[in-house]
């Protein structure tokens, strides 16, 4: 097998028909499968799986990825090596599947719970009275913006992402939106919070230093 094709050769071979295409597909499949195997084998969350199970998982991910790569091959712009571009697609596919599996049994309510950001732990033991006053001021500012200037969807999205660590693709689906719109929703919320702190003469960096 060979993977030292030029980008142009990869594209020509994959878009050819018959044996030329079959050989290129097989080469790409093997290349991805081996690398995915080494990557998956080293993931701490997959330690419970044995070698055969990891190999099967790598084979399945590689197979799915090659189908996507074939479909998208006309979108390859040649900014990187073809194999790096293909690996990017395989990584996106494989990690997307792993995240989906990890979050499969979590309900919509849990994902979008309107949780509280009220700090449950503050590092105040060594804080001076001035620092404590500043901490209270920062907390009050943030809570005020959260409650009065962010929409319920923004609060839900921030909470799910930041507190629960819900992957954005999954959260977007649950919130009936798409990942880009979700990113914008949260980005707008972060910008609003940041601006209000700055309005009060505090940069987030200053605020951080008060709590560390």
């Amino acid at each position, binding site marked *: 097998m060979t993977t030292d094709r030029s980008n142009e050769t990869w594209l020509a071979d994959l878009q050819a028909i018959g044996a030329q295409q079959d050989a290129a597909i097989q080469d790409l499949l093997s290349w991805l499968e*081996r690398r995915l195997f080494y990557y998956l084998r080293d993931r701490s969350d997959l330690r419970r799986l044995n070698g055969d199970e990891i190999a099967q998982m790598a084979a399945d991910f590689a197979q799915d990825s090659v189908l996507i790569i074939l479909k998208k091959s006309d979108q390859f712009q040649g900014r990187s090596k073809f194999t790096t571009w293909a690996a990017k697609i395989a990584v996106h596919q494989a*990690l997307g599947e792993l995240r989906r599996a990890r979050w499969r049994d979590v309900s919509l309510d849990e994902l979008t719970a309107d949780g509280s950001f009220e700090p449950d732990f503050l590092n105040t033991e060594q804080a001076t009275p001035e620092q404590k006053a500043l901490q209270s001021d920062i907390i009050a500012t943030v809570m005020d913006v959260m409650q009065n200037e962010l929409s319920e969807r923004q609060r839900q999205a921030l909470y799910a992402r930041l507190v629960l660590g819900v992957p954005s693709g999954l959260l977007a689906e649950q919130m009936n939106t798409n990942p880009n719109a979700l990113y914008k929703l949260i980005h707008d919320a972060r910008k609003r919070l940041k601006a209000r*702190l700055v309005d009060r003469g505090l940069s987030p960096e200053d605020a*951080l230093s008060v709590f560390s």
Partner: protein
Amino acid sequence: MSLFYKLLRMLALTKERELTCSEVNELLDYYVELEQSGENVKALMPTMTQHLRICPECKEEYDALKKITGIEPIMATAQEAS
């Protein structure tokens, strides 16, 4: 790290203009290759670097891509040759 601290850290990293996850994914292969060739990607593509600091999924995919493309030739070619 307290949740509140985490939130403040995110605000400190927040920029007026940020790339979305799909924009980052679009450039990720290029970014990783530039970095692997020794370029200072933090200076060349600061908006990419900023997103990778703020977004756990894109960071995970970046780490995975670096690892997967960095595997060759030691382990992989030994098997491919067999």
